[in-house]
């Protein structure tokens, strides 16, 4: 027989039938079912295949620890591989499929691996697949890779919405079983801010599996009372379907709430999160996560029909599902006997209770045969269990026919979250388990996680833990008494540890999911991988999706037994996030696709759009890169036109993204003098100066201009790329290095719309808009000051600076006016042939002029490398980078220095990133002379030009070299030249 539905079930609603499919077969269950309970109710015992040997596997647990029942749920972008059937809530139309099996879960060809078992022991792959050498990658590895893995993830994007939140509380209660509920209620009544989170769909934890009475009320009535009161408390926030997955520093917890995972597609609100990531900031935490029941390692312990005793209770009491008709229990502790009691209460035959303890002291008074001092050594049955073989204490074997076996090897406290920050759990012989560590950072364990047994003692422990915590936080609290005067709760565990049955027949599994057997652990020991961490890595025990929730402690027990030491001496492997696996979607929240990072828009963005700009991402900014006109199909058509137009007429370019910093204070000049390598102390009011900033290691950091707008008031511009970095650097200098200087600064990048107007006709255009005299005499090169515009209606800041090498101004106006001013300039320039130009044209013109950008200022160059060595002051007392700039390696004459480069034959092209070789030299890294930092097509010269950093630098003007681009298979004859291709005498600048 197999499992089937019976009466009862506190969690299910029999009036709400839900249909679903499993491997294509239509089945039905009830609202409140998990996929696992619904499958069991339908008699589906074999739900998956194991990883390595493809053994048929059934449902082992009723919760997060499930190693076997991993299904793929949903399809296309909503496909969830590796979903634990035991926590997936059933909804109408759910589609579930088994994994890792072909052609199907009932008949799986991969099962032949079972026959190869002896070859596939722990670590076998390290010893083989090496011959012949080429076969590993061509033959063996592809086969291994195809066989490995569990579910298949699709390539479709996920249509669901995700988000992230912060939450704050005085007390965070993790787990809503009896201990967590008592803690939350105690804390809630005291007025503290409480968050109680549980990964289940309902509050209750262990209470939900409880069929009987709590105190003098039925368990579900007691639970309803508690939950009702918690809901009524405004200072208590209840988070169900919320897994606390990680404990991070400062009592910040990561949690994921499965907001709509339990809903059918038709009911999903697309504006609500599918899953929500919480970062919970707590002042104190009550860890009430319970304990995980442990399997026992024995032959055939993975046969479908073998189930954890506690899980069997849950299926019986909460879901109304019986595991079979004739059940045996194999347990080494008293608590598990409750399963036998409950089975019998539901009229299910308990054939035998097999207990390795010689004289168990339990209160069990049922009908089952009680076999003490015995162990289950084997099971039989093809797709489900038919019988078990029991080894009696006198060595005799007995076969007992059963169709289900409940197993309990004890309880492992769920200590994960207490250990994520590095603390190690502590072994307890009394509990036969690893207990939570003593931690000092505000976390108190309570309930089964701390070794409490039974609901009454968990209530009590939870309430007391909360009182202590609240006390420390300054709340006065009384422990909530949830039981009245109870008695029933004197279960003594009396556990005698049993890890693995020594007389096991056949494969005895420690880690179900990774198919690790007791034999594998023994082999690892024999081969020297006997440290618990090495054994883990060599056998992969505990490395599957369940992270060894059911297997780790047994593996430790086996190692300990073999070495003849206590499990405490072996210790656990390291507990790490995530408690259960967390989706990328949840961790990413809304920052996906186009929303990956925010967009920064220039105040002239709208203007650029209206003028047909093509945009390019530059950091977070969108910058206009070129402005195609009708008929221009190729970007170069537009760029060439824009460049020629600037050089012969006039153009306008948005430079608002440059970093802008207002600098004030009595010591502002001194400050600038220290942060730039060139002199700034005597910059007069109304003047701008080009400056180079070094890092303290003497290499160039950034360049830009700084203008003196008034006494003690300067305006600095930085490159777009380093705007944030430079401000941070200046703040460091001002606050940390020289806090005694009176210097204050504020970013003004966003306040100003700034545009460059460049070309021989610039003045004709600007003088229509600017009221002040901007003639060469009145406003010479590098003048910088506030000007009146539009007949006094607007003031702006005007700078006579030029990146293009043309006669040029930059005008800055308050950002909101930017578009109007740009429109006005376009209107004023119409008769002069004005056209907007973008960053591409800007780039061409600066290369033509030999001006550098971060393509050259790449963090490894000195001012001298860039041909600006003379700017570095030799007079100043001190500036950033002054001393380190003089190191031997930074003044080495063989350093590459900036030059221009052009093809010998004007029709030849070359690429940025090409390397330079001497003519006739062999192609080798030793012969590398440097590389092309920037290149473009110069419409003025009619051929490609570039800048390069080349050994020997300007001394080599005129020399022929090879411009080598191995990636493109090209080698072009080039000539090293002066980088100022256009107007080397700077006549245009001063026009």
């Amino acid at each position, binding site marked *: 027989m197999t499992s089937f539905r019976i009466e009862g079930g506190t969690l299910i609603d029999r009036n709400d039938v839900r249909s679903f499919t499993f491997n294509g077969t239509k089945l039905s269950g009830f609202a409140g079912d998990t996929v696992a309970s619904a499958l069991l109710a339908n008699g589906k015992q074999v739900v998956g295949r194991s990883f390595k040997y493809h053994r048929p596997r059934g449902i082992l647990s009723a919760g997060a620890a499930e190693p076997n029942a991993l299904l793929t749920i949903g399809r296309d972008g909503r496909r969830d591989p590796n979903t634990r059937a035991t926590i997936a809530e059933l909804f109408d139309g759910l589609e579930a499929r088994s994994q890792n099996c072909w052609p199907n879960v009932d008949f799986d060809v991969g099962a032949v691996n079972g026959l190869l078992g002896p070859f596939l022991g722990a670590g076998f792959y390290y010893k083989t697949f090496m011959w012949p050498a080429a076969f590993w990658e061509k033959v063996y590895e592809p086969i291994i890779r195809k066989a490995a893995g569990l579910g298949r993830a699709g390539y479709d994007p996920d249509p669901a919405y995700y988000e992230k939140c*912060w939450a704050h509380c005085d007390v965070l209660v993790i787990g809503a079983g009896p201990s967590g509920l008592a803690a939350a209620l105690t804390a809630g009544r005291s007025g503290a801010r409480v968050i109680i989170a549980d990964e289940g769909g309902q509050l209750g934890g262990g209470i939900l599996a409880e069929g009987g009475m709590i105190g003098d009320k039925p368990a579900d009535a007691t639970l309803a009372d508690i939950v009702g009161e918690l809901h009524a408390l405004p200072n208590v926030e209840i988070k169900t379907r919320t897994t606390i997955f990680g404990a*991070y*520093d*400062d009592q*910040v917890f990561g949690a994921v709430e499965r907001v709509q995972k339990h809903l059918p597609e038709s009911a999903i609100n697309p504006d609500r999160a599918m899953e929500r990531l919480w*970062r919970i*900031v707590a002042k104190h935490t009550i860890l009430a996560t319970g304990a995980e029941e442990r399997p026992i390692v024995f032959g055939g312990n993975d046969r479908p029909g073998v189930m954890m005793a506690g899980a069997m209770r849950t299926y019986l009491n909460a879901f109304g599902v019986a595991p079979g008709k004739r059940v045996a229990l194999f347990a080494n502790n008293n608590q598990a006997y409750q399963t036998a009691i409950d089975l019998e209460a539901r009229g299910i035959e308990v054939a035998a209770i097999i207990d390795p303890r010689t004289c168990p002291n339990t209160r069990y008074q049922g009908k089952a045969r009680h076999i003490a001092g015995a162990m289950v050594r084997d099971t039989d049955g093809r797709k489900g269990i038919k019988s078990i073989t029991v080894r009696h204490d006198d060595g005799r074997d007995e076969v007992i026919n059963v169709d289900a076996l409940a197993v309990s090897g004890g309880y492992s406290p769920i200590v994960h979250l207490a250990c994520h920050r590095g603390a190690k759990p502590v072994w307890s012989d009394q509990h036969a388990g690893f207990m939570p560590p003593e931690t000092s950072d505000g976390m108190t364990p309570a309930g089964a996680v701390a070794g409490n047994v039974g609901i009454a003692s968990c209530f009590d422990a939870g309430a007391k833990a909360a009182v202590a915590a609240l006390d420390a936080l300054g709340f006065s609290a009384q422990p909530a008494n949830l039981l009245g005067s109870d008695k029933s709760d004197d279960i003594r565990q009396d556990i005698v540890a049993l890890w693995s049955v020594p007389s096991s027949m056949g494969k005895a599994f420690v880690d179900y999911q990774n198919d690790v057997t007791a034999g594998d652990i023994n082999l690892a020991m024999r081969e020297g991988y006997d440290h618990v961490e090495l054994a883990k890595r060599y056998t992969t025990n505990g490395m599957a999706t369940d992270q060894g929730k059911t297997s780790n402690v047994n593996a430790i027990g086996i190692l300990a037994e073999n070495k003849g030491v206590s499990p405490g001496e072996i210790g656990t492997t390291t507990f790490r996030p995530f408690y259960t696996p967390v989706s990328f979607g949840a961790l990413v929240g809304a920052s996906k696709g186009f929303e990956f990072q925010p967009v920064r828009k220039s105040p002239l963005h709208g203007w650029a759009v209206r003028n047909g700009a093509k945009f390019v991402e530059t950091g977070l900014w969108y910058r206009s890169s070129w402005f195609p006109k009708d008929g221009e199909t190729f970007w170069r058509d537009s760029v060439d036109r824009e460049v020629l137009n600037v050089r012969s007429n006039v153009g306008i370019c948005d430079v608002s993204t440059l970093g802008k910093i207002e600098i004030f204070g009595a010591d502002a000049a001194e400050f600038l003098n*220290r942060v730039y390598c060139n002199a700034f102390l005597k910059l007069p009011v109304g003047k701008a100066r080009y400056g180079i900033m070094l890092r*303290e*290691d003497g290499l160039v950091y950034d360049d830009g201009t700084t203008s003196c707008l008034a006494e003690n008031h300067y305006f600095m511009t930085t490159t777009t790329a380093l705007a*944030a970095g430079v401000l*941070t650097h200046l*703040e*460091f200098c001002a*606050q*940390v*290095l*020289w*806090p*005694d200087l009176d210097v204050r600064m504020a970013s003004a990048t966003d306040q100003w719309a700034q545009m460059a107007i460049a070309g021989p006709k610039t003045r004709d255009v600007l003088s229509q808009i600017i009221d002040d005299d901007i003639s060469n005499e009145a406003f010479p090169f590098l003048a910088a000051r506030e000007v009146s515009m539009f007949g006094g209606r607007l003031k702006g800041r005007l700078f006579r600076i030029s990146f293009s090498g043309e006669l040029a101004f930059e005008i800055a106006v308050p950002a909101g006016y930017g578009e109007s001013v740009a429109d006005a300039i376009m209107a004023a320039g119409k008769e002069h042939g004005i056209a907007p130009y973008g960053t591409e044209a800007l780039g061409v013109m600066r290369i033509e002029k030999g001006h550098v950008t971060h393509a050259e200022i790449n963090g490894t160059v000195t001012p001298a490398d860039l041909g600006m060595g003379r700017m570095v002051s030799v007079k100043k*007392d*001190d500036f950033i980078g*002054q*001393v*380190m700039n*003089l*190191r031997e390696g930074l003044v080495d004459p063989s350093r590459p220095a900036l030059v221009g480069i052009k093809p010998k034959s004007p029709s030849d092209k070359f690429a940025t990133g090409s390397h330079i070789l001497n003519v006739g030299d062999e192609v080798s890294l030793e012969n590398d002379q440097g590389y092309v930092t920037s290149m473009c097509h110069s419409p003025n010269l009619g051929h490609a030009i570039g800048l390069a950093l080349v050994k020997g630098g300007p001394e080599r003007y005129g020399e022929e070299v090879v411009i080598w681009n191995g990636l493109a298979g090209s080698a072009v004859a080039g000539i090293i030249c002066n980088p100022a291709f256009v107007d080397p005498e700077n006549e245009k600048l001063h026009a």
Partner: protein
Amino acid sequence: MSSLVKCPHCGLRPREEFAIRGEVATPRPKAGADESAWFDHVYLRDNPRGEHREYWHHAGGCRRWLVLSRNTVTHDISDVVDASTLKVGGDA
């Protein structure tokens, strides 16, 4: 630490709001100091296991440079001050 920092100006803030520069090394040498003093300052670090003083910049808040006293093993913070009050940078 590492999740939250109590900025002396802004209160408890998430790590995301901060940019970190690293160890408060030897003070910035005075003008005229020789290359080896500069080499020490720019390149060498104590990098201790345990108590560590380091620069954090509250970039997403007050934009002040802070000095944290923080344990590099436990991540516990024992002190946070505005860097300017320490005058740790040395002077020119």
